[in-house]
């Protein structure tokens, strides 16, 4: 959910974010839905493209 919000804030479609991260749109979609666990490398790439930290996008305070 955090990823989706950050992506929309940046005015990017799933396809655009996918192209910037060199992955498929489906992969971004599945990460947003929480159905795929990306590797740390991909997390870093997504965070860098969206100008966010890993914590901002992938850290869940409730699961602490």
């Amino acid at each position, binding site marked *: 959910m955090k990823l989706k919000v950050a992506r929309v804030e940046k005015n990017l479609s799933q396809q655009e974010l996918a192209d910037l991260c060199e*992955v498929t749109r489906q*992969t971004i979609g*599945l990460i947003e839905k929480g159905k795929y666990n990306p590797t740390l490398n991909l997390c870093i790439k997504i965070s860098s493209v969206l100008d966010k930290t890993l914590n901002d996008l992938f850290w869940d305070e409730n699961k602490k």
Partner: protein
Amino acid sequence: MDERNKQIALRIIAIMYFLTIFAMQGIAIYRQFVLGQELSEFEDIAILMTINSLFLISALLYFGGVPVRKLKIKTIILAYLVFVVLGSLFTYAKYNIFGSSDLSFKQLFDKLIIVCAIIGIMMGFWILLSILGKRRTEKEIGD
């Protein structure tokens, strides 16, 4: 192809690989016990499966697919004994139960020496690969 596609592809390839190996095993058993074919008639399948298993274990050991922390002499000896017992049972069954020839104890003992030697060479090869694999990883960490 992104990381997710690669992960899925690798998982499916691994499953298909094991299914193929099990299918080949099934074919070998079917040919031997149902069709009653001679061992020499499906030697190709047996050789292919043996080489396949040998290289699979070798590659797993070299590339760190097996969690080998420390090579303990006790574990190596135990593994060797297990392999020797299994190999001996297989050799005994092959000639005295499934085969038509009843081997004398002397003949069986001669064959067991060969089994012990082959297993020794095989395990030596795997130990060497484990050491080389560990060194390779240590070198990568060092770089």
